[in-house]
């Protein structure tokens, strides 16, 4: 294993040990998506009996819930993993080793992917026996949606982690707050045209909006919209680059201010 890959692997090991050592953490990962699935599943069941719109595409809400959880968990998986290092006052130890900030970013993304898969997989499979929704019917589109939401979650997670480095643990609630800010405007459960006119352009600056519109296009019209996919990929690349830059900049500032050895509760 080359140096970089071994150091990234070391960080992945560090957080997989942590996950393995705490069954409440593992349970918590799977609990919320399952809870969301049950809640929205029953809401969907109700709508199916009372709404012709929903009846056109059974499972649209269930799919939206699961995809939203991919975004939510990708963000949380990255930001919380970084937060674990701050809680453990471990950043100083890590950065006196040969670990580079870019390698830490890569390992945070990998751990976030593992946490997200642990989170959403049980709920995705439960949706079939409980609500007769097989999210894998989205086909190859599902992979594209999943990948784009992961990347957007990583970008937000990196931004939040950079702010945590700058502001300290007092700002840890940003891990949860940041992602929920976009929930109402990104068209998870309803099309973007439902939003007020002035808010629609804001919604289209979010890669997730393209994903949820794309999902509805597949489920309602059985059409995979490549233009929406291209929009999501371009915006994601831009945001990932920007947010990685912010994280690396904040890391640099922390090295100037001596915060790497001082972070803690």
């Amino acid at each position, binding site marked *: 294993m080359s140096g970089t890959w071994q150091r990234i692997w070391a*960080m992945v090991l560090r957080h997989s040990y942590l996950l393995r050592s705490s069954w409440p953490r593992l349970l918590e990962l799977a609990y919320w998506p399952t809870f969301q699935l049950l809640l929205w599943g029953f809401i969907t069941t109700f709508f199916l009996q009372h709404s012709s719109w929903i009846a056109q595409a059974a499972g649209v809400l269930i799919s939206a819930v699961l995809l939203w959880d991919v975004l939510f968990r990708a963000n949380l998986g990255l930001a919380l993993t970084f937060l674990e290092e701050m809680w453990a006052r*471990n950043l*100083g*130890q890590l*950065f*006196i080793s*040969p670990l*580079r900030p870019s390698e830490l970013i890569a390992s945070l993304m990998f751990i976030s992917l593992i946490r997200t898969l642990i989170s959403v997989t049980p709920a995705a499979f439960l949706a079939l026996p409980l609500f007769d929704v097989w999210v894998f019917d989205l086909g190859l589109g599902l992979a594209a949606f999943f990948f784009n939401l992961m990347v957007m979650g990583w970008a937000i997670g990196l931004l939040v982690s950079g702010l945590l480095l700058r502001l300290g643990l007092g700002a840890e609630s940003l891990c949860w707050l940041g992602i929920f800010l976009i929930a109402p405007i990104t068209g998870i459960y309803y099309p973007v045209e439902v939003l007020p006119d002035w808010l629609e352009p804001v919604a289209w600056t979010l890669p997730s909006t393209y994903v949820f519109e794309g999902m509805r296009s597949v489920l309602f019209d059985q059409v995979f919209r490549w233009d929406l996919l291209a929009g999501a990929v371009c915006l994601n690349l831009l945001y990932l680059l920007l947010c990685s830059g912010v994280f690396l900049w904040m890391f640099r500032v922390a090295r100037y201010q001596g915060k790497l050895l001082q972070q803690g509760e």
Partner: protein
Amino acid sequence: MDSSSCGTASPAIQVSKLTKDYSGTMAVKNISFTVERGTIVGLLGGNGAGKTTTLSMLLGVLVPTAGEITILGANMLTERHRVLPRMNFSSPYVGMPARLTVAENLSIYANLYGLKDIKNHVHRMAEGLALTELLKTPVGDLSAGQKTRASLAKALINDPDVLLLDEPTASLDPDTADWVRGYFEAYHKKACATILLASHNMGEVERLCHNVVMMKAGVIADQGSPGGLISRYGRDNLEDVFLDIARDASDVRETLS
């Protein structure tokens, strides 16, 4: 201490005109010193003297306001990743993830330092530091002495050429502290390692160090061998020299007279 068999021409650590200014608060002011290869040097000073700030800059986790640091021939500001695999650090104030076991922590650091055959390496380290029985114990459940041994295993996992220690025996009972000092002596002898030791324990410094750098209020107040400093200040031991410097000898003598 005999270091003649370890030393080579170029110093292991060269610090030149090093300064750290925290927005108007000068933690370290224009200090310069050299640590020869294969020697153990003590970095002494009262609380707030600038020892930890200096160590942080040497480790590369704190960027100096001015000055240069060269370790094993590498400029720490521009090429620290070239030399970090050959360095390590231990301090009771910088812990390891408490929920992970000793073995898990050590295998993570072994990977970070790019070691091969990690399982055997970790077991050898554990054997040398009497940690074998504790390998499956979470670090958070260890006693202070056991934690120090685990931290030491982490600090020596890459067989560092340069080892920086910040009060390594603080909060240890005399027996454990003596054992730890003996371990450092043995490691230094075996690896010809260069060790920079920040400590408040003058007995420890006299026992281990070839040279001493005394800091006060961010500057170097004096430096030399422990024996040389003791005779220069006309004292019986390094603790009295430390007190003279910390309290400023001339002021003390005036007050006493």
